[in-house]
């Protein structure tokens, strides 16, 4: 079996959940090799091994740690070549897709983004994607020697398969071309204390119906341990930061449960959430299209309904 390279997201807070999902998928395809940028924090190598990484490669060039895609693509291309990798897996994020596109050019590899499933086929890997705002699924087969695939978070349940990984520090050579973009200033996005939007098992989103007051949405989300999202209408009104926008021009989520509060459910919004396992809608307008796709619809004011449920959940917990 060939090597399957997984670009790991790992930092002080450990290994990201989507990375563990990638390792789980990688085991179906070959020998998982995790690539970590920077010196791995305590416990990172152990966690990667617990989920089946047979090798952990660490690369610590400063340009890689700045986070821009071009140097990462060049480094991965070298490592994929060294290891004769048949597949490179990355988590579907905007930056990782940038890396993946560059890598596909460098390796002349088959490129699939936003896959929801990856498995071995006769000629190469076979992937599934959901396209057109989740209204179609496409199954595609790679005919190239190498495939670069970005996988959506929550596509698979991460499963442990402990091994003792071989840890190796690797040197990569970065060209002037891939380091031509200079970072002048970097401001990390503020931590909210809530789960990452695209990784969360439950997402609670607020829209126009919040009237700009997200307190009920946030309190309800916190009672469920959920992430908070927002519709484009809410973001455009300046009520919630753009980083939390769900929909065609924002983030795409597929959690176990999606709660749309005060969101009518325009196609642009559905594009970002309709592959969610279950959907609950709370909206004052009984004609809101979101009710056509909700497993449970509550026609009512979110400012009344959500706080009442939040309280009931807290009471139940004691």
């Amino acid at each position, binding site marked *: 079996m060939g090597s399957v390279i997984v670009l790991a997201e790992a930092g002080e807070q450990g290994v990201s959940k989507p990375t563990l999902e990638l390792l789980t998928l990688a085991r179906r395809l070959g020998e998982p090799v995790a690539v970590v940028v920077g010196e791995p924090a305590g416990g990172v190598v152990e966690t990667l091994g617990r989920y089946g990484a047979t090798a952990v490669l660490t690369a610590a060039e400063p340009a890689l740690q700045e986070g821009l895609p071009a140097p990462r693509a060049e480094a991965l291309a070298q490592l994929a070549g060294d290891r004769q990798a048949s597949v490179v897996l990355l988590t579907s994020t*905007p930056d990782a897709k*940038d890396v993946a596109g560059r890598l596909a050019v460098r390796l002349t590899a*088959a490129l699939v983004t936003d896959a929801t499933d990856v498995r071995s086929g006769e000629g190469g890997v076979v992937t599934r994607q959901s396209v057109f705002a989740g*209204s*179609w699924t496409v199954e595609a087969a790679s*005919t190239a020697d190498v495939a670069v695939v970005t996988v959506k978070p929550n596509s698979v349940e991460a499963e442990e398969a402990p091994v003792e990984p071989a840890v190796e520090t690797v040197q990569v050579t970065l060209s002037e071309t891939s380091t031509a973009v200079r970072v002048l200033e970097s401001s990390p996005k503020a931590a909210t204390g809530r789960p990452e939007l695209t990784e969360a098992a439950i997402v609670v989103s607020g829209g126009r119906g919040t009237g700009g007051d997200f307190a009920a949405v946030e309190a309800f989300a916190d009672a469920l341990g959920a992430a908070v999202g927002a519709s484009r209408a809410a973001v455009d009104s300046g009520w919630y930061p753009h980083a939390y926008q769900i929909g065609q021009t924002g983030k795409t989520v597929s959690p176990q449960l999606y709660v749309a509060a005060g969101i009518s459910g325009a196609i642009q919004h559905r594009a970002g959430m309709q592959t969610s396992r279950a959907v609950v809608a709370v909206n004052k307008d009984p004609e809101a299209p979101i009710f056509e796709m909700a497993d449970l619809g509550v026609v*009512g004011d979110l400012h009344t309904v959500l706080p009442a449920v939040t309280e009931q959940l807290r009471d139940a917990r004691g």
Partner: protein
Amino acid sequence: MRIVTLVKYVPDATGERGFSEDGTVDREGTDGRLSELDEYAVEQSLRLAEASDDEVEVVALTMGPDDAADAIKKALQIGASSGVHVCDDDIAGSDALGTSLVLAAAIRKLEPDLVITGMASTDGVMGVLPAMLSERLGWPGLTLAHTVELDGRTLTVVRDGDTASQRVQAELPAVLSVTDQSGEPRYPGLKNVMAAKKKKVEEWDLDDLGLEADAVGAAAALTTVRETAPRPPRQAGRVVTDSDGSGAAALTEFLTAGKYV
């Protein structure tokens, strides 16, 4: 200075979208339009042109079948100076590698100082093309920018990365992709709509770009679509009209029964 802005003709996202029998996007049965996200790229090109002391030419570039010319037409109406339409039967069925090969060849021929794209198309939504073009051209790629500044030949943008917002800089020539936060696109005024009719649109084929037919299109694609299937539409479930706390009770019960708490 010359700016090339990439535009794409896509099926309207508010209509029914689907696939043809050969696994390519069905462009026959649906209305098309200029991809909404490309309007931000056209807008940004015009803003840079207006802010510049030099004369700046904005060329709208697209590839695709005959219909794709409509994307150029719209870009010209918004204010682009001229258009180039790469059109060749052998391009059909290209994957992202093939598409980026063709567009990179067209860009080289146009010799621009800057290439501006939207953050993704609204049909394929891969969002990989700007990065692939940067890689193919060997030019710095400044992607996902929401603030753009050009000072001489130094391009500085604020990009919205996964974990950080970064101010980054590079020298032209470069590839820039802009988000829908970069500034609202203008509407084409009647005067521009009339003026657009006189603007020049060139048609190029693979020969013009010095590309072989077998390097692109379905034949060269490294992924084969095996199956496309409409996802069964989500069904409406139970709807409860809230009265005296019945809505909250139903929601709490749903959460408990589904083991979400």
